[in-house]
């Protein structure tokens, strides 16, 4: 087994080092992309590259906008309650 292979496998045996920082929230983006891609891959009657990318982008954007609205609403609630 080559050293490169060993290094690649080693990255899967030790966890990344990060905590609850605002930038850590960006980890949700790849997950939202995966959900949008799989959902559209199962729902579209036929897969054409341009249409698939358009539909996936719309769903991805919709989810992100909804998350931002939910986050802002919760933030306003927290601000009103805590003063």
């Amino acid at each position, binding site marked *: 087994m080559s050293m490169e292979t060993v290094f690649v496998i080693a990255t*899967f045996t030790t966890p990344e080092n990060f905590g609850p920082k605002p930038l850590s929230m960006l*980890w949700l983006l790849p*997950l939202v992309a995966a959900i949008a891609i*799989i959902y559209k*891959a*199962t729902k579209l009657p036929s897969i054409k590259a341009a249409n698939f990318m358009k539909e996936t982008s719309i769903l991805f954007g919709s989810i992100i906008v909804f998350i931002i609205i939910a986050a802002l609403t919760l933030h306003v609630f927290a601000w009103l309650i805590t003063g």
Partner: protein
Amino acid sequence: MALLSREKQTLFLLIVGLLSWLVPGAGHFVLKEKERAIIIFATIVLTFCVGIYIGSIGVINLFGATPWYVVGAQVMNSPMVLFLGRMTADGAYPVYGWPNEIGQIYTSTAGLLNLLCIVNAIYLAYLRGIEPTRG
């Protein structure tokens, strides 16, 4: 496609479901939906790999304190998860805090997405089995 007998169709649906679980996208591949199969395989494998990259293979903790619903969702990725679970059973890959949580969210979401694809592949196979009876 010729009309399949009920037993043959049930067996075919089971095979499609099992293949989809063994390798994400394989069920769609058998149904000659190659584009869908490639998209499903790449997305689910990548999502699962991101999960175990963030939290290490320690996030696959089948016999530890991980809630049953997380374990169930992770196992839906592929039987390979059971093999990973045996590797981590002795606690050799400890992981705590955010990396553990984010890793579990990624791996279990990948599993749930594969469950959606398994159901979709079985439904497509079922529709193709009853197609000749329509109209």
